[in-house]
């Protein structure tokens, strides 16, 4: 297997996800098989092919700089489990 268990653990942490050791093992095997497939694609010579970031061929659409109404603050906060003085309230994070 080319992917290390530690790498999977690291990616999970970055994605804010927690897994059991057993699950980590399953994901490691699955990710590994994806990587094997990517390695297969890598055999192609793509040196003269532009990387594809988007599949539509259109250009950027712009909006003009005009202010549109915002949400009522109560609606903006409606999904928040906890609020305080018009703010979203979350467990303390340290800058």
């Amino acid at each position, binding site marked *: 297997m080319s992917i290390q268990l530690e790498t999977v653990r690291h990616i999970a942490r*970055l994605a804010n996800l927690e897994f059991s050791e057993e699950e980590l093992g399953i994901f490691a095997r699955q990710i590994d098989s994806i990587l094997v497939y990517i390695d297969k694609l890598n055999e192609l010579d793509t040196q003269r092919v532009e990387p594809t970031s988007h599949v539509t061929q259109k250009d950027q659409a712009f*909006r003009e700089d005009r202010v549109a109404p915002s949400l009522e603050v109560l609606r903006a906060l409606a999904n928040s489990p906890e609020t305080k003085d018009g703010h979203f309230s979350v467990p303390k994070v340290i800058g």
Partner: protein
Amino acid sequence: MEFEPVIGLEVHAQLLTQSKIFCGCTTRFGNPPNTNTCPVCLGMPGVLPVLNRKAVEYAIKVGLAVGCEIRGRSLFARKNYFYPDLPKGYQISMYDQPLCVGGGITIETRKDRKRIGLTRIHLEEDAGKLIHQEGADDRTLVDLNRAGVPLIEIVSEPDIASPSEAHTYLTMLRSILLYLGVCDGNMEEGSLRCDANVSVRPAGEKQFGTKVELKNLNSFRFIQKALEYEINRQAEVLQGGGKVVQESRLYDPDSDTTDLMRGKEEAHDYRYFPEPDLLPLIVDQKWIEEIRAGLPELPLERRDRLVAQYGIPAYDADVLTTTRELADYYEAAAKASGNPKGASNWVMGEVLRKLKEEKAEITACPVSPDRLAGLMGLIEAGTISGSLAKEVFEEMWATRHAAPDIVKARGLTQISDEPELLAIIDQVMAANPGPLAQYRAGKSATLGFFMGQVMKATQGKGNPTVIQKLLGEKLKGS
């Protein structure tokens, strides 16, 4: 061992658009928390960002002003990290295909002019504001009004060789942004923010040392002090045989130290990828040329022109070109008075002093350039003395009246009439036989005493040049 610092700055500037970069919410500062939000900037599922044309225009404007290459095709990317100031779990930024590359900003150092190279300028969205509550409840409050406000990030090359150069670079960059009218440059409100990458190396060494990222440099004064502290810290670590660790440090203005930032050890693994919700940004040459045609004269060009056109000292021109509005005011006063150096003295002296005193901007100055020229005209014509003119200026400021009206109403016209002044001088001399004897005994400093007495007797209205001439003659006993 001597160490020399290597500094690069990353400056974030809020663009002065009416609405946010990807939605129509207002960018207005100071509204109640979370009132400038909508499903797009709140990161609700199923919404799509639509790019604000003005934000792109402003970014190109800055790029052109500092000599960047404007890329015909650039790409937005997602910068992924979890932090409550970012409701989507990623920030829309630019990564390997920024809008502007290269360019540079010329700064004036004590010795000469120096060009600080730029790596890139790219567009991105701002994050929300967090308020960390003190005390038992241990909560962080989130205000997303700022989330989605358009920013440009201006990244310099590691060309800055001292904290004072960093300060000068930032001053010039801010000035350029103000001239372009794309950012209000207000550091206190966070419209302009600065991070620094700083390393030290033995003097003369080519290889860079390990760099440390300094955050929270949110005033011009802090930046210089934080850099000075950090450079000393790194030099001491190396001196003691230690190694500088690559890390992010936060400047604390209260203790004037930098401390290691905790809790974000993994945050630098951003896993950028192209933003699938936004198509590649295509900018055609025609648009770029339109924007180029609208570029104003920039601070350094204007400074050089003021020196050449009005013959004022470089120092004056430097101060007068800090903002476009101040330079406009000065030029109007210089032209109206026909006395460029005199106008410079007045603007740099009384006008700036009063503005500072009242914390006002030049655009709100109650004395117009024409009125100032009128006051200068009265001094030149000998109607009032220079010191009296300062009093008249104060009154012009307070009442918004023209100088001749004030002088007339208060009977301030200068006394230049020789017989009238001679009579006063005689009285003063008669009343002060002691000092007169001293003067005649060779103590020439007593002249100042007599000047003061005569000016006092004329209630400040005597013409100092005429008095000095007459006193010189009379005191000698001729």
